[in-house]
């Protein structure tokens, strides 16, 4: 056993042992361990395999920057893919398994791929697999790619809570500087939130000895107590994963394993970035071997988990920060030899087990090699927010430069590696006072990858990118940092380049013989660490995803055995009765034609236009002339968009000199209302026109059929219903049960129809009264499916079904306003564009099938005959008509008006039938029934 648990220290609770398995073997750890620390404590070092060559991998570090120890983890019957062992806290009963390795990480059958590495270099797949084509090779490559398997189970209740919040100051990072800054900010009276992604705040402090005279744990506790007692909030296990425009910070608050994290959308007044810095790898031969680890990482394993990563440690470092780490490890019981890699060539010796390190030809025995190539400030969030970076030559690192508005960096995130200096600086920032000016004592000798040097030297451990790959990229001229990254795939693994970006950049800089800052950096993008999709999705699912609007009368419909269908954004009766709908719908159509049907038309829009300019505005909004409409009268019309396309149809009722109600189609209400609100402010005076959407105040019950008047007469409405007193296309006001009602004689079915509108509170009473009255003569409720057939029999269009985004009103036979209406209206000029004047435009027609044939398919194309079929139009509505006892159809057809009587060919999914063009009205073309 190389790594082991020492008998003291760490933040783990040694009184609470936990049992878990990895690749089928059972182990014990403690509460507070991560999977990685617990495995190391048990001497297990190989925790995964690299993506391409399947080389054995052990953890590089102890936290988010580890690219190697990726596992699928199962707990309580649910397996989560691609968990980072270094950031997954241990729980009793966890079953972890390595990914992309079979049968285990220790023994992977695909380990042999490494023998082919010579040919499996960066971008090799661009140079081959072309013959015969990619499809021959793709399935194998796909199976070999990918990390974890994903369970096909849906995890019910894996739904994230999502919440908005705000504060004065957000401190990102609960290490020494974060805590100091937060405390100061709290003490100035600010509303402060501090977030840290670990369960125990304190960052890297537990690695150091005393802080301002106190033991780390005590010092941390004191700061936390001060922050919390001052009203500040300390959020643990919470990752700030992204900063978006206008300082919207995304936080993922993590809980127990298997719980969906909580999303915080936090809007702080200012942000103090104390996110720390990462220990940098050193690039040398065989540096990817298990046992080659981060020096800081090893100290973290010791400090937080009481795990010593090796017994005989060789350290390789180029900076002044490494010395104290080496001493700490020695004090814990390891044999440590410190080596200076800056002077020569290093090589790790060993395979799955490290035997030692060779430096400039001299062999040093070691079972573990700990590297520290310098510190890389974690500037991801700084860059998300648009902050700039400066290259610091002394630190050989990119540090925060020009700040985004309202953001400031402190501590090692800012390149301050001296703890006391960083604390003083952070306190000044927290209190918003002048920042002290001090020189750093941190020393570093530049140590970067040396292209051309011997041996295989890794840049990206997960994607198996080596210096040779960078040299190859340079050789082939993929020299910009983005080309380099995309060609070699370095930095694109699940760690998003936390350990590979700098060495990759430096390697390219060396190859090009240019300074590192000239090569540039890649773009930093959220999320800082991968986040479950559930975090973003929240509870927007099932019936909460785009929820339907509900009718006031829904309970009545359900009681009457209605089939409720989704249409136009509403849930409404499609037909009444259970089982196969065909007969129910058939009967409802006949009922309306012979007696009467009672239909819930509540979704129809009721948008009122009010004001001294109401008449002019409605006349402007509509294609038809509305200015001549008299109070008490109703007119059918089209709303066009600026392109002259029919956007919606509906009826306009004039209730008074300065009051109109637009009854637009149910699915378009919001769109029409918004359209009218826009146009009221453009080309019109908004002080004299107001748009009130009263749609949902009203329920509307339509009684339609030859006996409709009889039904209405039986209920008391105070309205004179006789034909001469109440003609077609007029509106009357009355009362029912003391409540005001409006009754319009408007018909969508071609039969005598009364649309009775009443406020919702009285809707049930009205509905029941009409139903009772109707029942006495054999009338009953009908649904939307029957209405669709009835209106088609009359040739009444449905906008968006019998029209499309090219249909202009003259295509539908409404030609007069285009030629004669003088007043300006929306879309008027577009109607006369070249395209509007063309003679082959598609017009609305009716279609009759050959005798005995089946009905046409909606969506079928009408085609010109010839060697290559050409679309002349479409079948837009098609039904078996119960009234006419034969199929009927509507469609759009080039020069339709001139082709009445012609036989045409209808093409559908490769088959053709013939049909005859006829006028688009199959029932009562004179409108005798309407005027009853």
């Amino acid at each position, binding site marked *: 056993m190389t790594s082991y648990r020492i008998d003291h220290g760490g933040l783990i609770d040694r009184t609470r042992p936990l049992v878990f398995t990895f690749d089928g073997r059972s182990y014990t750890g403690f509460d507070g361990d991560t999977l990685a620390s617990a495995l190391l404590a048990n001497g297990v070092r190989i925790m995964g395999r690299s993506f391409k060559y399947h080389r054995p991998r052990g953890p590089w570090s102890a936290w988010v920057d580890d690219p190697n120890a990726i596992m699928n983890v199962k707990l309580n019957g649910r397996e989560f893919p691609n968990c980072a062992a270094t950031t997954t806290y241990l729980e009793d009963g966890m079953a972890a398994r390595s990914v992309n390795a079979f049968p285990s990480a220790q023994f992977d059958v695909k380990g042999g791929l490494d023998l082919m590495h010579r040919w499996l270099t960066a971008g090799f797949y661009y140079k081959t697999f072309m013959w015969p084509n990619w499809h021959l090779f793709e399935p194998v490559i796909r199976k070999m790619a990918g990390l974890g398997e994903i369970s096909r189970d849906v995890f019910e209740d894996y739904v994230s809570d999502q919440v908005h919040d705000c504060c004065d100051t957000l401190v990102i990072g609960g290490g020494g500087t974060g805590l100091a800054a937060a405390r100061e900010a709290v003490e100035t009276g600010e509303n402060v939130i501090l977030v840290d992604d670990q369960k125990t705040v304190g960052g890297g402090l537990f690695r150091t000895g005393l802080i301002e005279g106190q033991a780390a744990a005590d010092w941390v506790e004191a700061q936390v107590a001060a922050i919390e007692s001052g009203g500040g909030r300390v959020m643990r296990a919470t990752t700030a994963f992204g900063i978006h425009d206008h300082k919207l910070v995304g936080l993922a608050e993590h809980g127990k394993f298997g719980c969906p994290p909580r999303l915080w959308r936090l809007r702080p007044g200012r942000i103090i970035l104390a996110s720390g810095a990462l220990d940098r790898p050193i690039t040398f031969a065989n540096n990817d071997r298990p046992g080659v680890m981060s020096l800081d990482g090893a100290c973290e394993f010791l400090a937080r988990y009481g795990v010593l990563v090796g017994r005989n440690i060789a350290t390789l470092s180029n900076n002044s920060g490494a010395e104290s780490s080496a001493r700490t490890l020695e004090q814990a019981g390891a044999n440590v030899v410190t080596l200076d890699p800056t002077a020569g060539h290093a090589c790790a010796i060993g395979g799955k087990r490290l035997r030692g390190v060779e430096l400039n030809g001299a062999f040093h025995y070691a079972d573990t090699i700990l590297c520290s190539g310098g510190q890389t400030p974690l500037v991801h969030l700084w860059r998300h927010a648009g902050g700039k970076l400066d290259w610091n030559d002394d630190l050989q690192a990119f540090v925060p430069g020009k700040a985004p508005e309202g953001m400031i960096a402190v501590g090692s995130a800012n390149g301050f590696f001296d703890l006391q200096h960083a604390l003083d600086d952070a306190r000044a920032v927290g209190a918003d006072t002048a920042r002290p000016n001090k020189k750093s004592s941190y020393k570093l000798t530049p140590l970067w990858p040396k292209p051309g040097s011997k041996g295989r030297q890794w840049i990206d451990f997960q994607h198996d990118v080596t210096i040779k790959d960078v040299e190859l990229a340079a050789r082939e001229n993929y020299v910009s940092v983005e080309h380099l990254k995309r060609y070699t795939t370095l930095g694109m693994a699940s760690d998003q380049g936390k350990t590979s970006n700098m060495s990759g950049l430096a390697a390219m800089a060396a190859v090009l013989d240019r300074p590192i800052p000239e090569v540039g950096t890649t773009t930093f993008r959220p999320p800082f660490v991968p986040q479950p999709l559930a975090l973003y999705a929240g509870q927007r699912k099932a019936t909460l995803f785009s929820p339907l609007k*509900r009718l006031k009368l829904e309970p009545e419909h359900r009681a009457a055995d209605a089939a*409720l269908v989704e249409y136009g954004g509403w849930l409404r009766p499609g037909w009444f009765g259970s089982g196969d709908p065909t007969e129910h719908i058939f009967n409802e159509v006949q009922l309306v034609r012979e007696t009467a049907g009672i239909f819930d038309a509540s979704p129809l829009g009721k948008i009122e236009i009010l004001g001294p300019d109401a008449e002019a505005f409605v006349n402007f909004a509509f294609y038809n002339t509305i200015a001549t409409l008299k109070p008490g009268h109703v007119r059918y019309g089209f709303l066009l968009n600026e392109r002259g396309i029919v956007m919606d149809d509906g009826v306009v009722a004039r209730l008074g000199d300065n009051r109109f109600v637009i009854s637009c189609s149910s699915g378009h209400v919001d769109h029409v209302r918004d359209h009218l609100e826009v146009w009221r402010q453009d080309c019109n005076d908004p002080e004299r026109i107001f748009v009130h959407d009263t749609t949902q105040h009203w329920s509307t019950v339509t009684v339609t059929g030859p006996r409709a008047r009889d039904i209405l007469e039986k209920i008391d409405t105070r309205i004179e219903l006789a034909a001469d007193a109440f003609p077609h296309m007029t509106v009357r006001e009355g009362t029912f049960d003391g409540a005001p009602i409006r009754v319009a004689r408007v018909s969508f079915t071609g039969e005598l129809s009364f649309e009775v509108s009443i406020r*919702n509170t009285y809707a049930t009473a009205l509905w029941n009264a009409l139903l009772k009255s109707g029942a006495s003569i054999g009338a009953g409720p009908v649904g939307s499916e029957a209405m669709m057939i009835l209106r088609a029999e009359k040739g009444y269009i449905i906008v968006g079904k019998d029209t499309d985004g090219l249909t202009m009103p003259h295509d539908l036979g409404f030609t007069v306003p285009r030629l004669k209406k003088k007043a300006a209206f929306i879309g008027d000029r577009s109607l006369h564009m070249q395209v509007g004047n063309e003679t082959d435009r598609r017009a609305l027609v009716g279609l009759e099938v050959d005798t005995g044939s089946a009905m046409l398919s909606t969506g079928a194309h009408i085609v010109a005959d010839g060697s290559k079929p050409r679309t002349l139009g479409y079948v837009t509505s098609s039904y078996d008509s119960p009234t006419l006892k034969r199929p009927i159809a509507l469609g759009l057809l080039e020069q339709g008006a001139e082709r009445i009587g012609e036989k045409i060919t209808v093409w559908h999914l490769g088959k053709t039938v013939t049909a005859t063009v006829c006028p688009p009205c199959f029932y009562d073309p004179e409108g005798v029934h309407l005027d009853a």
Partner: protein
Amino acid sequence: MRDDRMKWAPAGRELATFEGDGFRFQCVTMQSQALVSASDILTRMPDALGWPDVICGQSYVLSLRRDRVLVVNGPFVQDGWDSELSQAVSDVTDALTVFEISGPNTLALMRRGAEISFEAPSRSASRLLFGFGVFAYRYESHDTVRVHVNHAHSDAFAQALRQAATRMQATLT
């Protein structure tokens, strides 16, 4: 068409009163709600309130936009255009379902559906809450909020609120 009667819980069920951890949610009946629009409406009705004003009393006026208010439980006014007063009036009493959320966790619950705080004022009571366009304001006490929701979406709104409450109460541990 597809029969979805089983897919959607019967309308009305979600509107029942429910209590959660630190909040209570119930439906409130209004006598009347009227939209009143005029170009100078806010000067005419300086008592029209927004957020985070605490609105008191039986009758009050909500400021919705610079040319529109909602008069709640006001005196009866005829629907239509009043040419003397130069204002447009529409009765929308049954167009808006009114909910009341009260208790110490009211704001925490609302924050599940909107970026809202007492420190961020708004002249208008209009906002998006759980994706629905609503009117929301504080009523009578500092931790009570009334929300006016389009009638047809009242079930969905209540459902969204309930689910958010469940999420809020579920712990991460």
